[in-house]
């Protein structure tokens, strides 16, 4: 939880507001502190615009040369994608990479490459189109931070440290996969194949890193929603009751007198956060659809490969490692995404529940609570992938049940293919 710090009571705040201001100058905006490297990676790869930092709570639009740089990088990346596509459709140029046993497997691998390209291109194109929107989102988050700082004199934590770990993990996975792939091929590879593999890894990495970034954004939102909820909790009936029973601490008690003013601020904050939540959803939903489709396909084919490996006698450690690396990477990223989406959604929807408990605290302020509650009946927010499905903790479960179904179908396919081959042999 973000703010398990003790919140200073309004009276305290009133007394030592100035002192605190002097003691604790506005720390450098924390949105950049945790995610600095993530943002750097995304800026360098042209997915995010290279914005200017105007002040500690505002970012400005990028300058002309930087816009050109982003354009240039995106163009280069897309050219390489075209190169890969060309290699994929021309038989022979990268034929050595398809080494599997049967037809179905090769087709699977082929589709996997195609989906990866699709997912990556979708990411690049949509990011390029929404670059202004991203700056707006960042600015709005910073604005919220500023408001919170002005009011409560505290800087909210982001706890986005995970993003760096994930990026390092993804990079290691990609290198490892390249090495495994190169080792797996018996004869020497031609230059085309090396370039192909490298670009494929870059595409994979970038598409995945963007998902990590989305998860980090959602984590930031979650922390802000959680802050609202803890602030409101101070006003709930049980908290008020508890405080009333402790004698001699009158000064520290959060009195209900400050509630009308505070609630106004919190409503405003909540609205702003919901707006940010929705714009993140609008920005990323198509990218998420593309990535999740790709990840789903990869997980299915990898599990299938694993199955084939285990059932056949010729166990190859190379293939086993490849399968495990793929599975681990995609599962982790999907889990991260769905967990953060779920948490942010839960916190956003939790506000009305906390507020409902304020209802009993005081009769005088019920109409203020009502104002919020009536507008939240049956109006839960959801993080959806383009309206196709809701992304929350249940998504992972759904994906894996779908993977199982398709796995069974693929296995049946294999059996059919095998029996057909046997028939052909016996005919000969």
């Amino acid at each position, binding site marked *: 939880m973000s703010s398990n710090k003790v919140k200073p009571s309004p009276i305290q705040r009133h007394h030592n507001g100035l002192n605190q201001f002097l003691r604790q100058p506005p720390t450098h905006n924390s949105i950049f502190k945790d995610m600095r490297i993530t943002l750097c990676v995304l800026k360098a790869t042209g997915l995010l615009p290279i914005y200017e930092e105007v002040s500690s709570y505002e970012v400005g639009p990028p300058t002309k040369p930087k816009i050109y740089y982003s354009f240039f990088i995106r163009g280069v990346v897309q050219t390489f994608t075209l190169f890969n596509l060309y290699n994929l459709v021309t038989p022979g140029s990268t034929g050595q990479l398809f080494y599997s046993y049967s037809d179905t497997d090769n087709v699977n691998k082929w589709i996997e490459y195609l989906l990866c390209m699709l997912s990556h291109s979708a990411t690049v194109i949509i990011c390029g189109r929404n670059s202004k929107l991203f700056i707006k989102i960042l600015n709005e988050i910073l604005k919220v931070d500023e408001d919170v700082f002005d009011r409560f004199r505290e800087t909210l934590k982001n706890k986005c440290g995970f993003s760096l770990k994930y990026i390092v993990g993804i990079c290691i996975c990609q290198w490892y996969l390249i090495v495994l792939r190169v080792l797996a091929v018996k004869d020497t590879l031609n230059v085309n194949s090396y370039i192909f593999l490298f670009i494929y890894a870059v595409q994979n990495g970038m598409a995945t890193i963007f998902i990590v970034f989305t998860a980090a954004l959602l984590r930031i939102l979650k922390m802000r929603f959680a802050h609202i909820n803890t602030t409101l909790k101070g006003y709930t009936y049980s908290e008020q009751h508890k405080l009333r029973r402790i004698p001699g601490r009158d000064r520290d008690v959060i009195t209900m007198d400050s509630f*009308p003013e505070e609630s*106004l601020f919190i*409503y*405003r904050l*909540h*609205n702003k956060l*919901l*707006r940010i939540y*929705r714009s993140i959803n609008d920005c990323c939903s198509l990218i998420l659809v593309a990535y999740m489709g790709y990840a789903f396909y990869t997980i299915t084919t990898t599990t299938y490969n694993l199955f084939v490996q285990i059932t056949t006698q010729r166990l190859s450690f190379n293939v086993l490692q490849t399968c495990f690396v793929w599975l681990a990477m995609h599962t982790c990223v999907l889990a991260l995404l769905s967990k953060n989406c779920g948490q942010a959604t839960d916190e956003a929807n939790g506000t009305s529940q906390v507020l409902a408990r304020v209802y009993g605290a005081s009769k005088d302020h019920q*109409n203020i609570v*009502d*104002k*919020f509650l*009536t*507008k*939240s*009946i*049956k*109006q839960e927010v959801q993080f959806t992938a*383009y*309206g*196709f*499905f809701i992304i929350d903790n249940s998504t992972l479960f759904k994906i894996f049940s779908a993977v199982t179904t398709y796995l069974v*179908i693929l296995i*049946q*396919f294999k059996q*059919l*293919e095998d029996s*057909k081959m046997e028939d052909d042999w016996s005919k000969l």
Partner: protein
Amino acid sequence: MGQRLRKRISNILLRVTVVSSICFGLLPFYYNKQQQRFVSSKPLLIYKTCINVTFFILMTFLLSLFIEFDDAFGAGDPLAELLNRLTIYISFGDVLITWWINWTSRQRLQQLFNEFASIEIDYLYRYKYFTDECATFDYYVFWKVFATLLQNLSFFYSTTVTNNHGWLFIIFMFLLALLTNIIFHVSTHFFLAVLFTYRFIWVLNRRLASMAGNEVSSSRLRVLSIEIDNIAYIYTRLIRLCAHYTRIHQYQLLLLFGSMTLCNIEVLFYVRLLWSGKVNELNAFNVFAILQIVVVNILDFWLTITICEQALVTSQKTVEILRGFNENPKYLIDVERSLEGFAIICSNTKLRFNLCGLFDINHSSGLNFLLTMILYLIYLIQYYHENL
């Protein structure tokens, strides 16, 4: 595109749609400018009856013709032929049911059109500038007309591609295309109804947002309450209207989606047959001839799905805008009460497009349709694996 040009083109297209629907005998009424409502007319009713009878005779003729063809599309395979037949029969059934419902519910349809017109007159004429700003509306009209044209073109194109059946088959296909247009028209009606709903809600949202954002002078505060009540009233009317037209169109849409899914599975299956090396002289032209059917079908289908989703998303935004009113504490008690009433209405009656209680039309069910197509394609391929 300039706003006025866009507006003018979309108006023309709308008018053309209405006129051609009248020609097909689907709408036995016209818009009366003096009364500002749709009025039914005797000649149109008689024309409708005549054309329906003609079409019916045509259809029985076609059906008898079709039964005599064996393996009309050159599938060369019993199951594929069965699927073909099923698709055609479902389309015929669709046409029949469309007529029947169109005939029995012609008065309800007229009420529907009049309700739209009256909402326009009651409220929206005041916000004409908002209505004109809604670019999405015009673009969707263009898209729908484009998709319908493509459907027709693709029908004729596939007729010309399948050779060697003689003039009887070509006549059959052309007449079938004519009949299929009835279904396309009905689906266009539904599409337009949803599109109009979308635009109404969009305008309401714009109006609400401008009220929430502005500092309202105290003299206007009293009027504000009345206006919000008015918007809430329009909103409930729209929701009721939406349930109404979904009920009218539900069976046709269900059959349309069904036949479209079937057709797509079948066509995709052909692609697999082609790829499997059964046909040696496969070229890009052949693949295009087959894939275009799928692409056009999915485009048309997806337009219906996506406009419903747009309307849903827009109606969800209404509540979001209502929340924005929380930020201003200085409203009168009347305004607060109206806002609360509206919020409760919004949370209790939500926009939805439910087909026969089976499923709602939105993106998630659209995805389900696509996934079902892929799944059944896989089943079919498995079933046929021996022959491939």
